[in-house]
């Protein structure tokens, strides 16, 4: 059975992929943050929420739900916004210029970063490359969406100049 986005199993798969790439993440350096992922439904209903905890070079915590969890920030967006990012990563192997996590969240147009503490918020940027490479790992496994559709098959990574 394919993994589904959004689901705990999806983020556990990312955790496994990260562990398989320990050397790559060790090269990027200490990665110490706890952040949330919130996927807002397109129609009325509850958001899907997950917490991801990173320590040293590892993803040490993946859990469902953000209630009562202290996070540095929460990355939030509609299901379609998350899907657009994941489709792009899956098709190209890594986010292109229009779909990097920073680009999508910078003005909060597609995804946004919610935070209470600007110091902890800055961890988005202290660990920017680690977060991007973690999300890019979703290109490595098959998954589907709640309607049964799948992200596009892998194409050659294109290099764009916008």
């Amino acid at each position, binding site marked *: 059975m394919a993994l589904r986005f959004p689901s705990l199993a999806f983020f556990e798969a990312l955790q496994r992929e990260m562990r398989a790439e320990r050397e790559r993440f*060790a090269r*990027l*350096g*200490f990665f*110490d943050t706890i952040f949330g992922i919130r996927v807002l439904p397109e129609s009325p209903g509850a958001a899907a929420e997950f917490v991801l905890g990173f*320590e*040293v*070079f*590892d993803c040490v915590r993946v859990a469902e739900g953000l209630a009562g969890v202290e996070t540095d920030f929460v990355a939030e967006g509609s299901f379609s916004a998350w899907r657009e990012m994941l489709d792009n990563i899956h098709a190209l192997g*890594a*986010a*292109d*210029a229009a779909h*990097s996590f*920073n*680009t999508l969240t*910078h*003005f*909060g*147009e597609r995804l*946004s970063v919610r935070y209470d*503490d*600007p*110091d902890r918020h*800055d*961890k988005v*940027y*202290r*660990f*920017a*490359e680690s977060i*991007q490479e973690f999300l890019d790992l979703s290109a490595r496994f098959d998954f589907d969406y709640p309607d049964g559709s799948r992200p596009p098959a892998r194409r050659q*990574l294109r*290099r*764009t*100049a*916008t």
Partner: protein
Amino acid sequence: MSYLSTTDFAEDQKFVDRFRQTMRGDLELSWMDVAREPVSCRPQNERRGLTFRDLDVGSYGFTEMPERIRQNRSFAPRGAALPPGLPDLQAEVNRKSEVWAYNVEGYYEEAMTRQWNATTDIPWDELQQTELPEEIGKAYAQLLTFLTEVEMIATDVPAKWMGRLNADFFEVKNFIATQAMDEARHTEIFRKRALSTGYGLMRASAHNEFNLKFLRDADSFAEASLALHLQAEGMVLTLFRFSEYISPTEGDKKLFRLVMQDEARHVGYGMQHLKWVLDHFPERRELIHHHLDEAENFVFGGGYATEVVEPFIILSGKGLKKEQIAEGVRITNAFQLKQIEEYFERLAKCGLPERRERSRLWRLVDLNRQAMAAIAPSTSVPHA
């Protein structure tokens, strides 16, 4: 040679005799008998390795370090026995609250593990294959020229202060050594990217250089840190994030993600330092405001100069056509508002919430808002 030894050791008979005795095997060994605090530090987290925090024990640690360093005036490592006759090196900064930051030891460890290489970590071959349209290439080269100019001074400032801090503040000295390395790498990468665009370096900025001179010539480390780490780098951090947003290729995006990581660490130190100052040296509050008054004036002059702002407008609008410029102005305005908003958020978090009311930067915000309303009153505006 401004400093000469007061002793000519080759002619000092007592010194020469003692050396001869030692080399004949007649050891003196007084250094072995000095009463010391024996410790055997171990990593608290094996996966992280042995960190400075693991060494925070007794007289070796930073927790018990006093506010005023009256004992150690030399290069002696903190916790070492201080024999009579050590020179007074006249460090300029001897108060802990002038340099210390919460978690400075953590920022240092993070910096050491997150170093990267401008020569090998950027996909230069892919960047070479991407030809930028002329107006985009020139605007990008001008932005890179500005950033090269900025980062050179950001290297000089921490390097200038490193040797002026009391040796007991070695965690801070080490941290600003990593900062100097980070900023040197930023100078390197922006220069390399500028010279690989096909356009080379464009025009230096006189307005910007007045701001850089202000940063370099701060009268104290506390002033330098406030203006550099918190104010200038805080604004540059938002600028790097915006530069990632408007970057023309994936390789350029990676470049800006890597520099923003370093910059965010420096801002983190600046925030935690200001918090420490306000917690431990509250009488400095008014001085901080006075320094920010001046720093903000320079930022307005330097950060909003023509050769700095226009490349942002062209890059974010993706060209020089009228509608592209209008779009570029709209996005650049939103960036500037975000930059100022984040600056005040950080100051408030550090314990300076009243800065928002006192600052003249709001005049700039008003100018931006008027400009945005005039250009595109009916179009959506990115959240600032």
